[in-house]
């Protein structure tokens, strides 16, 4: 369970997060949606301590992570798998080395055991025989899947997805959406998905939260989102340029 309370952060002169309250219940997938530039990625980076809020609190399994010293923060981070927008694979390493990196760094597994785990996790995301390839020779969708395999290498309790379907074709987007779903069922992981892709949001989300101007303005199930009378949420999920949210 992750509890976010009154989270505020100012970047330059802009109040990016202005009192975010959000609960992510264990075992559920919560989709944080909102327009580009509403602070979705900033929220995501705050949760794993890549950015530090000006005020507010983030509790992971009852432990406050805001202001935690690096050593303890790293212990919390080990419970997280993160899929970055671009995959963030290390291009100096092969696919296999990328997926195995957290295992080499944090476990005492032998290289044979690591290789076995790497192959297994790559299979989970539908990839076979790619261990020796370099990330540069992979397509966008494959890179995301390798990134996902790396994120689940350590059996995380939480997975954070930053725009998992952005930049992918519709078919690859569906593959990723199904993977997010199947991982939740297979390892019972709790997920936070940051996206502005409504298809993806409906597909993977148990709960949707909408971020607008630094606050959560709506939370509810996908059905509740569809039937809401809130004009802002309605405008966003319909993808209309007319309504209370003004295009910049």
């Amino acid at each position, binding site marked *: 369970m992750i509890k976010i309370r009154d989270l505020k952060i100012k970047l330059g002169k802009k109040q990016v997060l202005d009192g975010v309250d959000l609960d992510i219940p264990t075992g559920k997938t919560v989709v944080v949606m909102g327009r580009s530039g509403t602070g979705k990625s900033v929220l995501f980076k705050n949760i794993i301590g890549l950015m530090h809020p000006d005020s507010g609190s983030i509790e992971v399994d009852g432990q406050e992570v805001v202001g935690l010293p690096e050593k303890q923060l790293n212990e919390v981070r080990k419970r997280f798998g993160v899929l970055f927008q671009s995959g*963030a694979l290390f291009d100096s390493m092969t696919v296999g080395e990328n997926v195995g990196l957290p295992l080499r760094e*944090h476990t005492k597994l032998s290289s044979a055991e690591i290789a076995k785990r790497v192959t297994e996790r790559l299979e989970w995301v539908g990839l076979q025989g790619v261990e020796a390839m370099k990330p540069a020779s992979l397509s966008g969708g494959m890179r995301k899947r390798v990134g996902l395999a790396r994120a689940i290498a350590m059996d995380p309790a939480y997975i954070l997805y930053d725009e998992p379907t952005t930049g992918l074709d519709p078919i690859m987007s569906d593959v990723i959406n199904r993977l997010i779903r199947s991982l939740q069922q297979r390892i019972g992981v709790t997920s936070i998905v940051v996206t502005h892709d409504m298809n993806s949001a409906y597909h993977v989300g148990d709960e949707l939260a909408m971020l607008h101007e630094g606050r959560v303005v709506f939370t509810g199930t996908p059905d509740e989102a569809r039937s809401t009378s809130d004009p802002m949420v309605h405008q966003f999920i319909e993808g209309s340029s007319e309504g209370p949210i003004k295009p910049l």
Partner: protein
Amino acid sequence: MMELIEDGYEYLRDKTLDSIAEVGRIAMLVGDTFRKLGRGLRSFGLVVEQMDHIGVQSLMLVFIVSLFTGAVAAVQAGYQFANVVPLKFIGSVILRSVIIELGPVLTALIVGGRVGASIAAELGTMRVTEQIDALDAMAINPVRYLVVPRVVAALVMLPVLTIMANTIAIVGGWIVCLTTLDVSTHTYVTSMKTFFFMKDLWSGLIKAFFFGGIIAWMGCYYGFRTEGGAEGVGIATTRAVVSSCVLVLISDYVLANVLFRFIFNS
């Protein structure tokens, strides 16, 4: 008019504060590197990999530059000695100018260009493609994983490259002496032996050690602080190279003073 002055004042104030903050951040990176040194060295494979990048792959460049450095030193000495100083002293002049100054400084400047740029570009690209964030998110400290191996490799390899540069430069000078100055090998070597002092060699190597640190830290610092896309990487690379070259020359002056006035002054 008042507005103009106020704008100017604000600009100067911001610039000054920025520079002070920058020095502070570099000092923090250096401090962080020392704190993570122990754990960083345990991943010895990464250090060896960087030694190859920084040292072995610079060999050809250092070879060519130092060969000509030695040759030019001989030509210049020959020209300036003409009718003033006997040419039998030319070996010692080449030797001492090479091991004290030309070897370490020129090696640092060309390696600074090559390696400083490549470190800043690599880490800068890693920064803008979220690879450094990914390390943090995986609970792998980026300073330990990326900075420590590069700094350690540079600290070790710069003196090594300098020794090589010294040797090649002396050979370059010798070739010029033999072919155009009519100085025999025997005269050249005897002159070098007569005026060789161990402290000269040491001072050059100590300087090279410091230059190695400057090059690696500048590359890492500007790489880590890269913002924006390709443009940001370009800016970081330029800053890393320019700042390391300038700092190499400034610290050369400082170190020369410290080493010869206080340490090797006997």
